[in-house]
C-alpha cells in the first residue's frame, strides 16, 4: 500500500493505493496518528484503493472518532467492492462518503 498525503493548511488529503489490510493497516494508523494534529478536514481519496479488510475499517473508525472531536472526515471515490463492505458493516451510516 502507498500513502500519499497532501496538506493545505488545516486540510489533509490522504490518497491510498493498493490494499488496506491486516499487514498495511498499522502503517496507516501510525501515519495518521502523527499527522492529524490540528487538522479540521481529513479527506481520504480511495480511487486507487482495491481492498479493505476489518483491520482497515478499524483504522477508519478510530480516525472518524478523532475527527468528530476536531472537524470533519470525508471518504471519496470508493469503488463498488469497498462500498459493499461499508454497506454490510453499517459503515455507510458512520462515515461521510461522497
Amino acid at each position, binding site marked *: 500500500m502507498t500513502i500519499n498525503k497532501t496538506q493545505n493548511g488545516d486540510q489533509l488529503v490522504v490518497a491510498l493505493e493498493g490494499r488496506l*489490510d*491486516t*499487514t498495511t493497516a498499522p502503517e496507516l494508523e501510525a501515519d495518521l496518528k502523527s499527522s492529524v494534529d490540528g487538522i479540521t478536514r481529513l479527506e481520504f481519496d480511495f480511487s486507487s484503493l*482495491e*481492498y*479493505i*479488510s*476489518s*483491520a482497515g*475499517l*478499524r483504522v477508519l*473508525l*478510530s480516525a*472518524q*472518532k478523532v475527527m*468528530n472531536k476536531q472537524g470533519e472526515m470525508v471518504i471519496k471515490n470508493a469503488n*463498488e*467492492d469497498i462500498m*459493499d*463492505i461499508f454497506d*454490510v*458493516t*453499517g459503515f455507510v*451510516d*458512520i462515515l461521510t462518503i461522497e
Partner: protein
Amino acid sequence: MVKTDELTIEAAVDRLDDVLEFVDRNLEEAECPPKVQIQIDVAVEEIFVNIANYAYTPKTGDARIVLSIAESAPEVSITFFDRGIPYNPLAKEDPDVTLSAEERKIGGLGIFMVKKSMDVTEYQYKEGQNVFTMRKGFASA
C-alpha cells in the same frame, strides 16, 4: 468435477500474503469473478489472521488450508485446520452495525464480515483440531 488444492503454512500474520496468493491463484484458474474473489479474500484474511493471533499464543504452529472448487455449479469451499486452543469464531455475538461512531467498539467486525459475505460458514472441533469451513457459490466470469 471437483478440483482441490491445499497449503500448510505457519500461522503467522506475515504469511498472509502467501495465503492470499494461494487462494487467488486457484480462484483465477476457476474464473471466479473479481468481485467474489475480493469477498473471499476478505473472509480468508479474517480467519487466517484470527488463527495467527490466537490459536497457538504464545507459541506458534501451522494452519492447513484446503480449498476445493466444484466446477459444475461453481462453488468454492475453503477449510482451515489448526491444532491450537479450541475456538469457535461463529459463537461470537454479531456487532450492532446500527450504532454511531462514538458507540462503536473498535473491532469485532471481522467474523461478522465473513458470515455476511459467505453463503455457508461451519465450525467443528474434531480430533484435536479447529475445523472452520466456508463456502460460496459464484457464476463464472
